[in-house]
């Protein structure tokens, strides 16, 4: 088993958003600023890694037909841990991520990893897989947030980028999110088809 590969595959080659096309709602909704995106990455990666760990540990004793409900319960438990912790210690972040924290539960990246990987692989591989996928998700999210925050608020992490530039506030609301992601996917396709020759 090539542990390095398990880690990096999620970042580009099997990037959950750009390649597999899942987990779209949190991607769009939490990319209005880089700081939101980073917090979301942290939250999702936490859930991914720990649910992968638990699931790879208990994979032997789970009755096959109860797989899904049990996996969902495990995931939901970690999501709730994140939810409560953010609410207590990062109230501002909690407020701006809104309902997308509980919705990590249905983010199919996580369930998908549990099903496809953690329930079949060992502890180390599953942990690395979770980390890699989380990073891939987070990286995409952050790049998207970078463009949206810069064009939509002329800010990055709260600091003005170009004094005097009047940002297009559409970029930080829904239409901007959709259009920017559309362009990112377009770029990805163009890059891939060029590479193929």
């Amino acid at each position, binding site marked *: 088993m090539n542990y390095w590969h398990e880690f990096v595959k999620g970042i580009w080659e099997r990037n959950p958003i750009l390649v597999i096309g899942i987990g779209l709602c949190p991607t769009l909704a939490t990319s209005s600023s880089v700081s939101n995106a980073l917090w979301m990455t942290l939250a999702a990666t936490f859930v991914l890694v720990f649910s992968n760990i638990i699931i790879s540990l208990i994979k032997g004793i789970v009755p096959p037909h109860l797989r899904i409900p049990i996996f969902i319960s495990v995931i939901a438990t970690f999501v709730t841990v994140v939810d409560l912790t953010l609410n207590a210690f990062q109230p501002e972040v909690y407020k701006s991520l809104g309902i997308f924290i509980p919705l990590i539960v249905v983010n199919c990246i996580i369930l998908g990893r549990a099903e496809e990987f953690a329930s079949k692989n060992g502890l180390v591989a599953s942990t690395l897989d979770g980390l890699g996928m989380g990073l891939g998700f987070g990286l995409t999210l952050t790049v998207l947030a970078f463009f949206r925050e810069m064009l939509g608020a002329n800010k990055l992490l709260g600091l003005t980028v170009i004094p005097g530039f009047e940002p*297009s*506030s559409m970029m930080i609301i829904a239409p901007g999110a959709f259009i920017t992601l559309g362009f990112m996917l377009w770029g990805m396709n163009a890059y891939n088809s060029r590479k193929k020759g």
Partner: protein
Amino acid sequence: MAEKESALLMKLSSAPHIRTGDSVTVIMWTVVAALMPAAVYSVYLNGLRALIVMAAAVAAAMAAEAGSQYLLKRKLSFHDGSAAITGLLVAMNVPPDAPVWMVVAGSLFAIIIVKQLFGGLGFNIFNPALAARAFMMASWPVHMTTGWHRFSQLNSLSGSLTNVFGLPPEVFDAMTQATPLTLVREGPRILHDFGLGAEALHRVLFSPEMLKSLFIGNVGGVIGETSALLLLVGGLILLVRRVITWHIPVSFIGTVAAVYFIYYTATGFEQAGAATLFQVLSGGLFLGAFFMATDMVTSPVTGAGMLIFGAGCGLVTFVIRTWGGYPEGVSYSILIMNALVPLIDRYVKPKVFGT
């Protein structure tokens, strides 16, 4: 995308062998010409600034069209007039004092994102100029909602609105700085500050002077909407030249009038007639109904479909103006109905002869 059939069109050419004189280029430039009365008048009313804004928008739109056609390796057809219309309408949809960079951004958005990405002329789903307006509205709301010109004093077409009702000068001043539709919403609050009731507002808004001003053209508003009369002239040119059909303008304006009349009557408003007329003449309804809802690419192809489309536009306009957050609903109503056009076209088809 399957391979185009062009190769199969024999050189010999199939019947019919004669064609109408109307071409896309002729149609498009006719629309530009029909917009000219209102545009020229607007320059007279709002000053050279309006001309600069329009010129910049048109140039940007045509350049964007040429550039994206070049990059997407399509046939160059930026001179067919459709991009010019889009640019012109982008400009006619912003306040006279709008910054030039903003209309340029609007034109680029319209042509590149709304039109060319979808395949260029004929394939766009949304009206490019209106999508650009919505884009600018969401992006730079301050520039889109300020910078109106007050009712002009130096105007030979229609006399300026005078303070016939003896309102305090500050009040009159404040009121004539807004667009008529903004006034409907904000007027009561302005008056309230001076201890006056809303009736004073209605006396001004629905007065014959105001209606005349709206019709002939002397109100604050976006570059294109200052004179209902000249828009009507342009619209009639399009009707006579058969560029557009009566269906959309008649059902759009008719629905707005009908619904407002019912609304005002039902809410026991005593000046229902004048108020309805006020609603019909303001807010760029004529600009939208004659020049933008009629964009054939983004409206249904059948007459019945057009009637439904126009009525839908009218209804949504009423809803947004009456209850919505924006004072003006024409542009959003058309955009929303644009999204429904594929469904309308799918279900409203003429019955095939003999079936």
